[in-house]
């Protein structure tokens, strides 16, 4: 009995050790999004490609949408761009851009130079839509389902491994839901 009591501090210490060791491998940048499960916020902004054309959340196509926040001032966006171009040929979802706190001529030039993977880009110069989406940098990518509910928020560079691991299963899941009429 006495021996057992003496072992208690050691056991506690080891438990603490395990806890802290696991903590070393957590990514503090990975924040749970407050918006997952909520509808895509309302907005009324011009299209990047056409200054005089207002677009709202009603204009997004039915079905699964991928909304990518990008800007020409963001180096990681450039890195991510070729993969977005590749994704744009996938017919299971529509890819939209939010051009976040950027200059229109620069952004248009960028799309001309690196190809335009988006249906269109929403021109969010003030970052108001970004704010409502809880965006704190670029690139960020949101998955929006057929009911316009945000299903996933991903901050960082989209690349094949992340796509395989985090996005594809979710897209399959939403497709199942659509097939079942939810």
């Amino acid at each position, binding site marked *: 009995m006495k021996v057992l009591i003496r072992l208690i501090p050691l056991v506690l210490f080891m438990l603490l050790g395990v806890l802290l060791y696991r903590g070393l491998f957590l990514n*503090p*940048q990975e*924040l*749970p*999004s*407050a*918006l997952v499960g909520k509808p895509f916020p309302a907005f009324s902004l011009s299209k990047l490609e056409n200054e005089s054309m207002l677009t709202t959340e009603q204009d997004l196509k039915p079905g699964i949408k991928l909304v990518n926040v990008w800007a020409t001032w963001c180096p990681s966006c450039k890195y991510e761009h070729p993969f977005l171009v590749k994704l744009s040929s996938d017919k299971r979802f529509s890819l939209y851009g939010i051009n976040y*706190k950027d200059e229109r001529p620069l952004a248009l030039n960028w799309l001309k130079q690196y190809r335009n993977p988006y249906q269109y880009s929403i021109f969010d110069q003030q*970052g108001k839509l970004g*704010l*409502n*989406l*809880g965006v*704190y*940098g670029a690139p960020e990518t949101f998955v929006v389902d057929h009911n316009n509910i945000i299903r996933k928020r991903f901050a960082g560079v989209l690349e094949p491994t992340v796509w395989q691991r985090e996005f594809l299963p979710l897209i399959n899941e939403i497709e199942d839901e659509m097939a079942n009429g939810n």
Partner: protein
Amino acid sequence: MTTLFKTLRNIAATLTLTLLCLFTVQASPVDTYTFPDEVTKIRFQDLTYELRCPKCQNQNLADSNSPIAADLRAEVYDMLLDGKSDMEIMNFMVDRYGDFVLYRPKVNSTTYILWFGPVVFILIGAGVIFLFTRKKAEQPAELSEEQKQQLKSILKD
């Protein structure tokens, strides 16, 4: 002579320190917000102090230079001028950026350990100390006659 030298040295040191303090730079970013009254100004300072910058993680809105922090400061300012309450502003931020933006976490089931953990540990510690000291108190045995004699002879020396 040496005392005079010491005094002079102390004065020199004090002067240097004072000068150093005079030249410290305030590193907080400068926004040129004008407030209609003192209360709004203080509320703004309090809110930006309590809200955390989502990008820089370990700075509050008031301290951070990052663009998103500047945006959020502007948003807080606008909402204050719109007559929103502190609670509404906090909720606005939490709705978008999650509980993470609060430097003072809410009390709910996920944060009970955080809030009450320390109290629990203090109680456990107090319990352990109580148990150990009580055991000790039972122990002191009477010295035998022989030991008392011995003690006396030692103390005499």
